């Protein structure tokens, strides 16, 4: 039997794509090496950040603001409709987000960011320090301004991928865990996958394959002789003990790495893109299957940034820190779509794929269902890196 679509990877991307494809009657099969949501999709900060991110304001990252804003605007609508579409509560909070400025230089950067976003159609607003403290009275007195976006927020990364997987199953998708792709090769008009399923080796044929393998994607592709420019980003997160609710918003910082939010239970979740250190294999390359090590200096620095803007955190206790791995692309924008050198092979990885995952999974599914790349995401297509495979002979 030849499947119409075989999806590799049961993270947010894979599960959401499975749901869209199943709803369209394509009965996809999804294989996941470990368990659903075992990768970055279950380890991330859960931030829904729709303002232009700090990393896109760093030197050398200019020119991408427009693409990102366009995508984020679509993502806002995607998240706003998710609970209804999946008909279950998903802890999605879109009460607003603040990107803070601590000094004049920060404020200047924020002002130009807000002006640019407004030009691009994103309704961010520049707030004074006093207005920001009007929203969050516990902000430090020296916070001198903030960019406010009314529909930013956060969601619970522990339940979303599972919700998509359940919905996909009920629409006829076949989802197999403990099922690892070992080998993938082109065979005539279709793809042949070799899969290890609970210790047994099986094969499967499919017309379309989606590589939704997160930070494993570049290595899986490399094994087939294909180059997809995705680079590891080992990160860390922390959470404090519970405190009475006071922060219904997402907090970011324009000049420093910070993301902060409060869960329904009252815990403060703190991150913002601070690095952890991958474990190494015998050959010195990062071990993609092992959790990265926490870097104590980065943990301290991260918490210092958080307590710097929210002094009340100094009275809280850290109850847990964890690490996770994700990947960023060569130009920091997501890579989504068919790989030109390998017809029928689709990839979706890189970038803020929690925020963008539900939207991009829908677009990816559409490009298979409609047999054409949706115009909305043409800019993120894998074709922009086609030159990297100019001499590739996919095996």
């Amino acid at each position, binding site marked *: 039997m030849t499947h119409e679509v075989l999806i590799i990877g049961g993270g947010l991307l894979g599960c959401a794509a499975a749901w869209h494809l199943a709803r369209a009657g394509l009965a996809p099969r999804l294989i996941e090496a470990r368990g659903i949501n075992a990768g970055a999709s279950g380890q991330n900060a859960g931030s829904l950040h729709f303002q232009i991110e700090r990393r896109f304001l760093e030197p050398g990252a200019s020119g991408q603001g427009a693409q990102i804003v366009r995508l984020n605007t679509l993502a806002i609508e995607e998240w706003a409709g998710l609970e209804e579409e999946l008909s279950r509560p998903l802890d999605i909070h879109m009460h607003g987000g603040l990107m803070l400025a601590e000094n004049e230089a920060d404020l200047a950067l924020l002002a130009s960011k807000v002006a640019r976003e407004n030009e691009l159609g994103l309704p961010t607003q520049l707030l004074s320090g006093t207005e920001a403290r009007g929203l969050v009275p516990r902000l430090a007195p020296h916070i001198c301004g903030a960019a406010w976006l009314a529909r930013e927020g956060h969601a619970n990364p522990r339940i979303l991928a599972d919700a998509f997987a359940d919905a996909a199953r009920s629409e006829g998708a076949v989802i197999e865990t403990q099922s690892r792709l070992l080998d993938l090769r082109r065979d005539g008009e279709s793809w042949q996958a070799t899969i290890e399923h609970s210790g047994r080796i099986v094969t499967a044929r499919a017309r379309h394959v989606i590589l939704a393998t997160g930070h494993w994607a570049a290595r899986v592709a490399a094994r087939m002789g294909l180059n997809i420019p995705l680079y590891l980003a080992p990160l860390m997160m922390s959470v404090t*003990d519970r405190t009475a609710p006071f922060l219904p918003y997402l907090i970011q910082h324009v000049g420093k790495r910070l993301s902060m939010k409060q869960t329904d*239970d009252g815990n403060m979740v703190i991150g913002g893109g601070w690095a952890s250190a991958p474990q190494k294999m015998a050959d010195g390359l990062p071990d993609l299957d092992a959790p990265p090590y926490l870097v104590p200096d980065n943990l301290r620095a991260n918490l210092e940034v958080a307590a710097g803007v929210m002094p009340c955190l100094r*009275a809280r*206790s850290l*109850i*847990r820190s964890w690490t996770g791995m994700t990947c960023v692309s060569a130009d920091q924008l997501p890579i989504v779509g068919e790989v030109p050198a390998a017809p029928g092979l689709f990839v979706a990885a890189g970038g803020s794929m929690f925020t963008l995952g539900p939207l991009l999974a829908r677009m990816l599914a559409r490009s298979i269902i409609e047999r054409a790349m949706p115009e909305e995401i043409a800019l993120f297509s894998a074709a922009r890196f086609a030159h990297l495979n100019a001499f590739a002979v996919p095996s």
Partner: protein
Amino acid sequence: MSRVADGVNRPAPITIEIDGAAIPAHPGETLAAAMIAAGVYRMRDDRSGAPRGMLCNMGTCSECFVWIADGQTWRRRRACLTPVAGGLRAATREGQP
């Protein structure tokens, strides 16, 4: 639960405080060991008010969170990872006594 006594030499006991009661403990023990030796198995209550106590005894399950006095504030700590020290004040409810 009581400490093994036969064939064991322990340093002289110190005094710690759990929910306001003075409890003897030996240097080198964890707070969880001292609490259990004193018959305190309920280390915290969960949101529903149900009792929680030590489970993994190695710092991974977070079941043994207690409050420990730190100057004027109370901090949450895992009892199984916290060594006892003279004057330690621990509580199974926030800010008590």
